[in-house]
C-alpha cells in the first residue's frame, strides 16, 4: 500500500509541485491550500478508515491556522500523527518552544530539494513501508 501524505501549503505552485513529485515517487499525496481544507481532509480520511501516514505542513499560512496550530488540531484526532513542518525561516529558535510543544517529527527548510524531502519522509515513516 502506498504511504498517504497530506500536504498543506498556500502557494499553489509549491503545493502542486510537491504533490506531483511525491506521487511520481510512489506516495499517495493529497494537497490542501489551508488549515480548513487540511483538517476536513484529515477527518474524512479517518472516517473512511484510510488515515494519512504523514502530514507535511507549511509553517506560515496566508490565512487560517499556521502549520504548528494545524498539527495540534490534527493531534487531537490522532495523537500518533507524524508531522513535518516546512519553513522559509532560517532562524527557528524564535519559535522553538512552539515547535517542541507541537512534537514535530521533522522541520525542513525551504528551499529544499525533492531528495531531501524523500529522505525525511523515509525517516519519519520508519520501516512501516520498507519492502
Amino acid at each position, binding site marked *: 500500500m502506498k504511504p498517504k501524505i497530506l500536504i498543506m501549503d498556500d502557494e499553489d505552485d509549491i503545493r*502542486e*509541485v510537491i504533490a506531483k513529485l511525491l506521487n*511520481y515517487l510512489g506516495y499517495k499525496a493529497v494537497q490542501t491550500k489551508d488549515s480548513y481544507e487540511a483538517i476536513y481532509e484529515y477527518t474524512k480520511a479517518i472516517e473512511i478508515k484510510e488515515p494519512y501516514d504523514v502530514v507535511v505542513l507549511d509553517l506560515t499560512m496566508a490565512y487560517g491556522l499556521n502549520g504548528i496550530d494545524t498539527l495540534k488540531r490534527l493531534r487531537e484526532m490522532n495523537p500518533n500523527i507524524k508531522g513535518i513542518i516546512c519553513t522559509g525561516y532560517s532562524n527557528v529558535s524564535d519559535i522553538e518552544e512552539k515547535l517542541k510543544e507541537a512534537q514535530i517529527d521533522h522541520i525542513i527548510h*525551504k528551499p*529544499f*530539494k525533492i531528495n531531501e524531502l524523500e529522505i525525511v519522509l523515509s525517516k519519519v515513516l520508519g520501516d512501516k513501508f520498507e519492502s
Partner: protein
Amino acid sequence: MEIKDPKEKYIEAVKALFTNFSDEEMDKYIEEEALMQEIENKINQTTDLEKIEVLLSELGDHMERSLFKEIRVTLAALNKKLADEEVDFLLFKAFQNKYTI
C-alpha cells in the same frame, strides 16, 4: 509623431513595470528573458527526453524566483506532444537535479 520601434516600446513597457530597476539590471533582465525564450523554443522543437532534460536544466541558469511557473509553462507546452508520464519524468528529473522547492 514619433514612431518607436517594437524593442524600444518593449523596453519602456518593462521599465514601467519595474521602475526600481537600474539600467544595468534592466539590460540583464532583457538579456535573460531572450535567453530563456531561446531555450524554450529549443525545447519545443524536440521530443527527445534527454535533450529536454538538459535544456530544462539550462533554463534554470537564467531564472531567479519564478522557477515553478516557468517550468510548468514549459512542460504544459510539452504536454501537447509528450505522454503524461514523460512530462512527470522530466519534472522529476528537473527537481531532482537542479531545482529547489
